[in-house]
Structure formats: structure tokens, C-alpha cells
């Protein structure tokens, strides 16, 4: 495997592991579609951050898009709780409005912002090696996207490691968690904040919609294979890495988008895990 391929697979794997870990919590909470909404609606945040800071990556971008991600959550809650819009419609209205706003901003600022709509939707992992992080004295530290995702992974591991019990309990049984005195609302927003962070960090590599594929498919695959949550987290991460490798191979074979190929591989792995689960239960029943 040459250095380019290695860099692409490394970035893909980091992104996939981030998404898989977080997605495991999200699908347990029945919030897969909130993640979908956030991943669409960070677009205007990214455009605004571009506009104000001129940066294509780094701190301002993460902050701007993360803020819009949280705003999406608040918008959905406002429509649902305060304005009494039913929850599926609240999600649909919020993210389509913000995404439309983002597309309009991209068009309006086309001269000033180097960002095109297709890239926003499905990213381009293959370009990752073209954007290395060069230090002042000219050292090539590898692709910038790998550093961003790596940083994100560290944050995720620290938060999950320190607060596993809280996140786990508030996800599985919010009523019980509340009776133990855990602030379920706070943990909800912590997870939504992490979702924004991971989405933005993964965004440039895989685009808005495939973030959702990686957040939903590997955890759903792991869920077919185990019922223990810790095992599910580990399996989901492993499936994520497998997805990145398989996606690269498929994309290279077809000369197509790596991110799209990763989503397809993720779907195929899900079908395989589901069939394996069925087969096992059939054997156990026989």
C-alpha cells in the first residue's frame, strides 16, 4: 500500500471510528435522525465561519459549525416543545431550512468562499493527502484531516472514558438515570455537542450525508451481533475500520468517491451481520 492510499485509509478509519462510537449512543437514544439533521445543517455554520475567518479548517470552523449544530438541536426542541410541532416534522423543517440557507449562502458568496455544494454533500477523501500540515520549518506532518479527526477521537475517548456511566444510563433508561440524580438534559446536550464536533471534523472528508451513514450503519451492524453495550462500542469501531479499508478498495476499483464506497461497504456489512444473526438464531432454534 503506497503512502497516499495509507493516508486515505487512515483518515477514513479515524472518521469512521469517531462516527461509530458516537452513533452507538445516538441510535440507542432513538436520535439517529437528529444526527442526520445536525449533519445537514452545519452547512451554514461552515459558510459563516469561512466568511469571518477565511479559514478552511481549524478552530473557527469547528466553533462556528458546532454552534450551528447546537442551534439545530435547540431549534428542533423549540419547534417540538414550545410550538408543539410533532417531532418528525420539527426535525424535517429545521434541517431543510438551515441546509437551504447554507446552499443560498454558498451561492451568494461564491466569489469569496472556496467551497462547492457537491463537496459539502459527499466530500472527497481522495483529496485528503493533498492538504498536509506543514510546520514552520517545512516538516510534513501528514494530512491535516487526520490530525483533526485524531484530535476529535481523543476528545471522544476522554469524554466516554470519564463519563461512560452517565452517558450509558441516560441513553438506556432516562427515567432511572433521572431518579439517580443525573441531569439527563445536560448529557443530552453533551452528546449533541459531540455530534456537532464529529460532524464538522468528518465533514470535509466524507460530506454531510455520509457522516450519517457512518454514524448509523456500523453501530446498527454491531447491534446485530451483540447485546452488551461495551462490546457493541468495540465492535462498531472495528466495523468502522473495516468500512474504511473496504471503501478504499471498492472506490479504487470503480474510480469513484471513497466516501460513497464507504457507505456502500457499511451497508453491505450490515446486511452480512444481519444474515449472520439470523443464521445463528436459526441454528440455535434447530
Amino acid at each position, binding site marked *: 500500500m503506497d503512502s497516499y492510499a495509507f493516508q486515505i485509509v487512515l483518515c477514513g478509519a479515524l472518521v469512521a471510528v469517531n462516527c461509530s462510537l458516537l452513533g452507538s449512543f445516538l441510535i440507542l437514544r432513538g436520535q439517529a435522525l437528529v444526527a442526520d439533521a445536525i449533519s445537514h445543517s452545519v452547512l451554514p455554520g461552515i459558510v459563516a465561519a469561512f466568511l469571518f475567518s477565511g479559514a478552511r479548517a481549524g478552530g473557527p470552523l469547528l466553533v462556528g459549525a458546532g454552534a450551528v449544530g447546537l442551534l439545530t438541536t435547540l431549534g428542533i426542541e423549540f419547534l417540538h416543545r*414550545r410550538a408543539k410541532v410533532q417531532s418528525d416534522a420539527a426535525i424535517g423543517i429545521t434541517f431543510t431550512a438551515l441546509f437551504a440557507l447554507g446552499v443560498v449562502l454558498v451561492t451568494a458568496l461564491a466569489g469569496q468562499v472556496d467551497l462547492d455544494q457537491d463537496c459539502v454533500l459527499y466530500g472527497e477523501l481522495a483529496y485528503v493527502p493533498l492538504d498536509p500540515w506543514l510546520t514552520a520549518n517545512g516538516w510534513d506532518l501528514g494530512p491535516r484531516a487526520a490530525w483533526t479527526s485524531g484530535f476529535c477521537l481523543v476528545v471522544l475517548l476522554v469524554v466516554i472514558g470519564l463519563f461512560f456511566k452517565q452517558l450509558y444510563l441516560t441513553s438506556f433508561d432516562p427515567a432511572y438515570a433521572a431518579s439517580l440524580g443525573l441531569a439527563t438534559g445536560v448529557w443530552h446536550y453533551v452528546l449533541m455537542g459531540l455530534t456537532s464536533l464529529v460532524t464538522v471534523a468528518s465533514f470535509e472528508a466524507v460530506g454531510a450525508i455520509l457522516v450519517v451513514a457512518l454514524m448509523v450503519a456500523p453501530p446498527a451492524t454491531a447491534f446485530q451481533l451483540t447485546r452488551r453495550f461495551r462490546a457493541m462500542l468495540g465492535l462498531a469501531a472495528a466495523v468502522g475500520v473495516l468500512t474504511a479499508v473496504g471503501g478504499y478498495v471498492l472506490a479504487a476499483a470503480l474510480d469513484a468517491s471513497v*466516501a460513497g464506497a464507504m457507505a456502500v461497504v457499511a451497508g453491505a456489512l450490515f446486511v452480512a451481520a444481519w444474515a449472520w444473526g439470523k443464521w445463528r438464531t436459526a441454528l440455535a432454534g434447530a
Partner: protein
Amino acid sequence: MDGWLDFFTFRDANVRYVTLGAMLLGGSVAVVGVFGYLRKRSLAGDAVAHAMLPGICLGFLLAGQKSLPWLVGGAFASGWLALLTIDWLPRQARLKEDTAIGLVMSVFFGAGILLLTAIQHGGNAAQVGLEDFLFGRAAALVGSDLGLLSGLAVTLLLVVVVFYKELALLSFDAAYARAVGFPVRGLEFLLTTLTVLAVVAGIQAVGVVLTAALLVTPAAAARFWTHRLPLMLALAAGLGAFSGLAGAWVSYVAPAMPTGPWIVLAASALALGSFLLAPGQGLLARWWRQRAHRRKFAEENLLKLLYKMGERRQDHDRAYQPADLPTGQAPAQLAATLRRLRAEGYLTRRGPGWQLTPEGYERGRRITRLHRLWELYLTEYLRLAPDHVHDDAETMEHIITPEIEQELEKRLRRPEFDPHQNRIPYD
């Protein structure tokens, strides 16, 4: 102002196509969206729209060129497959419905991106413009597209009109529909087909990502203005068509602007306006009603308090200073309540104090009477312990109408004392 005139006289054929196309789409898709909204399955439409991308690409690969029937056929087939998978997965694979939607949507979309990029890198010159399906191409609508779109729109509306009763029952109470012998599976099949058709039409204008907005947003907005389905359908169609008009107008005035996202933004603005301003269910109307209720409760509680203080002293001809009134209200709030009661003629000022007018005395006595009657009713009829009835009566005393009051008096045979041995005051 020339822009306005040029636009609204539809002198330019292109303007005519784009505007009419966008309005037809906005209106007819919104009508189908109403049923999806009522069944709480708005996001399934979003998933279907995303899932059409691989079908469009396959249609292109099979036809070898951008032939609309092949593209639409492919979109229809893959959208259909996606919706069936979404129905099937939660039962087969222990997944929640939202996980199933997210999974199907993103994996299908990923497959679409894979095919699209493979086609683009493949060097077939005919593929240029295929990616328009991502964001729609309303601004590029031409006469033949308009024919197809009107055909789709009329079909959608006709089917909804013909099967109106069946679809309405399915949306409101599927269990009942099954019980009275409606072919529920067949109707679900019909509605699924309608949704897929609507989405096929929608992606022409606004693209796969934003079609969900055409389905959801006008329906949700219409829901806030009415409880009646026919009116809701008409309103959703009107709002959808208006959004289409607005989007077409913006992209006419600013040609660089994409029509689809502006249609969505217009619909979103209309929806937000509806959520805030609709009479009855709107946020402002509800806030106003709650405020009126809070004020009424505060006023009646104060009148009741003054009456009971007079009752305890056996002297109703007294004035009280605000500091002597144990209402639990903050001083500023209490002062406001007192002022309102004076303006309504229930209180008068006497020196530094406040006193009940005859009308105020009357109303305070009535509230006290209702409170005590209700407490007695709860102990007599529901067999609740006397120390458990006060809180409920605190609420009911403000709600009981004169008719219910009469009925209570009759049932309890005009009792003299409440469960706490307080005398019930009559006129």
C-alpha cells in the same frame, strides 16, 4: 419595477415554465405530504428522496444518456425499494424506525454517490448535468418538463380526490380502518406509491436533499390553521404553490440564485410565521390565552381571599392594605392585579386600603361557593378524603360554569356545609 411586471405577466416563456412548474410541484407535493404528516412519517419522504439517487444513476447507465423516462423510472424503483426496506427493517433486524430510516437513506445515498462519481470519472459526455438532481434544476425547466410535471401533479391530485375518504381514515385511525374492513395494506401501498411519485416530481425542482421540505413544511404550517382535513389539504397546496412562486421570483430577480433552496426558505418562513401567529394553535395565541388564564386565576383568588377575610371577621365592610393580603404574589404583581380589579369595578380604594365593591363581593362569594361545593362533591361522589380535595377545587373553582354549578347544587341537594364544616355561601 420592470422586474415585477416582466415576471408577473409571464411574458418570457422560460419564466412561465419555471414559475408554473415550481407552483404545480409545490402544491401537489404538499397535498401528499399532508397524509405523511398526519401519519407521523414525514422523514420517510426525506429518506425516499435521498434513496432515489442510485436509481437515477442506474437509469442513466442503462439508457446511456439522460433520458427522462429512464431517470424517473430508476428514481421511482429505488425510492420504492427504500421505502419498503424502511418498513421491513424494524421488524426483521431489531432496529428502531428512525435508525432504519437513517440507515436506508444514507446507504442508498452513498451508493448513489458511488455511481455518480464513477459515471463522472468514466468520461461519458452525456452525464453533464446529472448532478443537478442533487440540488434540483427548477431554473432549467423547459416546456416538455412542464408537461410531465403537470401530468404528475394532476395524477397526484386526482388520486387523492378519488381515494379521499380511504386515505383520511388511514391517516387518522389505521386500526379502525382495518376493523371496518378497509383494505389497509392496499391503501398503505397506494400512499407509498403516491409519496414516491411526489418525491420523483419534487427532486426535479429542489433536488434530493431538500424535497423533504416540500412534503413536510407546508403540511406542518397548514396544520396550525385548521383542524379540518379538506381545509388543511387546500391550505397546504396553497402554501406549497406560493413557496414555488416565491422561489421562482427570487431566481428571476437574482439569476445566480438557485430556485430550490429559495422555495424551501419561503416555505420555512411561512411555516415559522404560522407556528407563531396562527390563531388558536399559534405560539402567540397560546401565550396570550395562558396569560389571560393566569390573570383570571390571580384575580379570582384575590376576590376569594378578600371575601374569606371578611367572612372570618364577620365584617365585609373593611378595606385591606396590600401588605395584609397573604396572596403569595410578588408585590408588583399584586399591585397590578389590584389595579385591574378596580378597573373592572370589583374593588374600590378607601384611603390606603382596598375594599370589595358589591360586584366584587358577589364574585368572591361565588368562587368560595364553587370551591366548597366541589370539595363536597369530591368527598361525596368520589369518596376522596376531605384533606385531599383542596388542590383540585383550587383549579375547578375557576372553571365551573353556572350550568355545572346548578347541577352540583341539585345533586348535593343544596348542602349547607363543605367537608371542612365551612358554611357554603348562597345568594
